[in-house]
C-alpha cells in the first residue's frame, strides 16, 4: 500500500490522509495492559491491570494510577515511561494554573493542556508521539468527569471507557452494564467485573489497581486491603 512509504516520518501525511505514526502509536496503546474508567452519579472510578514482568518485581513500588492534583487522577494504557513524562508535565501545568489564577485547575482545562502537549509531539521535528492513552478522572465544580486522551492529542469525555488489550470485550461489557444513575460503589464493582472479563489468571489485589474520587473531591488510590474487600463483595 502507498501508505508504507509515508510511515517513517511523523510529520508527513500519507496519501490517504492519515499520519501513520499516530496509527502505530495507537497500536502500541492497544497492546498495553487493559485499563478502564466509569463515571458514576457521585464520583468516578478508574482501574487497571497491574501485570508485572516477573514475580520477583516488588509490586508495591509500581504505581500505575497517579495523582495530577488532589482532585484529579489518571491511569494509562501503553508505554509506562511515556506516561511518567506526561504526568510530570501535567502536574506542572496544573500547579502553574493554580499559581496564576489561585483556583484549582478545572478538569477540562488540565485535559486540554495535556492533550496540547501530546499534539505538539505529533507536529514537531525529531520527536515521536507518546505511546499512551490516558484516562483522566476528576471531580470539580462541574461534578464528576472522565476523559480519554489519545496519542494524537484528541480527547473525549466518556461515561465509561476502556483501553488496551481487551478494549472491545471491555467496552461491550460496559455498554451492557452501565446505567446513568450508578453510584460510586456500584461503579467500582462493575469496574472489577469488567477487568475480570479478560483477565488471564487469578484476579487479586496484587495485580489490579483501582483509583476513585467521590463528592469529597479527593482522589485516592485504594489500598490492597480495600481492593480485597471489594473483590470479596463481587464474588
Amino acid at each position: 500500500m502507498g501508505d508504507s512509504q509515508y510511515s517513517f516520518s511523523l510529520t508527513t501525511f500519507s496519501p490517504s490522509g492519515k499520519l501513520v505514526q499516530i496509527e502505530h502509536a495507537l497500536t502500541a496503546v492497544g497492546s498495553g495492559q487493559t485499563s478502564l474508567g466509569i463515571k458514576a452519579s457521585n464520583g468516578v472510578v478508574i482501574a487497571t491491570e497491574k501485570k508485572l514482568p516477573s514475580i520477583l518485581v516488588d509490586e508495591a513500588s509500581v504505581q500505575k494510577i497517579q495523582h495530577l492534583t488532589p482532585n484529579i487522577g489518571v491511569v494509562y494504557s501503553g508505554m509506562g515511561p511515556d506516561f511518567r513524562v506526561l504526568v510530570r508535565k501535567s502536574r506542572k501545568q496544573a500547579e502553574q494554573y493554580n499559581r496564576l489564577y489561585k483556583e484549582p485547575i478545572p478538569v477540562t482545562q488540565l485535559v486540554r493542556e495535556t492533550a496540547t502537549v501530546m499534539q505538539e509531539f505529533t507536529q514537531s521535528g525529531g520527536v515521536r508521539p507518546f505511546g499512551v492513552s490516558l484516562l483522566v478522572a476528576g471531580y470539580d465544580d462541574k461534578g464528576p468527569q472522565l476523559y480519554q486522551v489519545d496519542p494524537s492529542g484528541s480527547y473525549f469525555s466518556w461515561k465509561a471507557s476502556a483501553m488496551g488489550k481487551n478494549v472491545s470485550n471491555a467496552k461491550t461489557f460496559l455498554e451492557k452494564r452501565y446505567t446513568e444513575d450508578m453510584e460510586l460503589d456500584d461503579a467500582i464493582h462493575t469496574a472489577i467485573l469488567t477487568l475480570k472479563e479478560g483477565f488471564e489468571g487469578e484476579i487479586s489485589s496484587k495485580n489490579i489497581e483501582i483509583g476513585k474520587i467521590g463528592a469529597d473531591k479527593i482522589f485516592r488510590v485504594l489500598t490492597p486491603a480495600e481492593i480485597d474487600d471489594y473483590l470479596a463483595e463481587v464474588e
Partner: protein
Amino acid sequence: MSQSAVDVPAKGGFSYDLCKRNDMLIQKGLKAPSFLKTGTTIVGLIFKDGVILGADTRATEGPIVADKNCEKIHYMAPNIYCCGAGTAADTEAVTDMVSSQLRLHRYQTGRDSRVITALTLLKKHLFSYQGHVSAALVLGGVDITGPHLHTIYPHGSTDTLPFATMGSGSLAAMSVFEAKYKEGLTRDEGIKLVAEAICSGIFNDLGSGSNVDICVITKGNKEYLRNYMEPNPRTYVSSNGYSFTKKTEVLRTKITPLKERVEIIEVTGEAMEE
C-alpha cells in the same frame, strides 16, 4: 523542536538593566514610589511537641496603617508555615512561589515536604536577588526529622534557632523570649509566651499593632489560630449610628450641563454632489 520538549532552567536573579534609567530619573527629581511595609513583630519558638509561630497583624505604609488585620503567617506546606516581615508584596510572592514549588516536589517524591527544603528554596531565591526582595522570614515546621525553626534574612543568610524574632518589633519580643524561654515548654506555656512576645511588640513598637495570630505545628497536626488575641478592639462612639434631626434647607437650584446640547436643524435640500 517545540519549546515544551526542552526544559530550560529559569533565569533568576536581579536584572540590573533599568538601574541607569532609574538613576537618571532620580537625578531629574522623580520621587520613587514608597511600598507597603509590614513593620511587624514575628516570632517562633520550639516547644516540647513542635513549633509555635506568632505574628502581629498591622501593615504600614509609611506613617499610615494600611491594613489593620492582615495575615502574616503564610502557608507553605501542610506541615510548614512561614511568618513574613518586610515588604508585604515580597513576602507574599516569595512564600507563594516556594509553596507552589514544594507542592510539585511533593507530588514527584510522594513524601511530605521538609522544612530544610523550604529553607533552601527560599534562601537561594533571596540570594539571587541580592537583597532587593525585601523579605525577612521566620520559617517553622515539623517534618520526618523533627521540629525545625529558621530565620531568613533578605540577603539570603539563615539561622537555625530554638526561638527567634524578626521585624521592627523583634527587640521588644526578643526581650520577652530571653527572659522567659526554656526548653521543653508545654503547648499552653508556649502559646502564652508567644502571645506575650507579640503583645510586647504590639505595644512598644509603632510598626506593629492590632491582633495576635498564632500557628501551632506538631507532628501530623497544625492549628492556625487566626486572631488568637485581640488586645486592640475598635470602640465605636455610637452603636445605634447617627441621626440628623434638622433637615438642610434648599435655597437655590442651578443645573449646569457638563456637555453642551447643540440642536441640529436638518435642511432638506439638494443632496451633495459626488
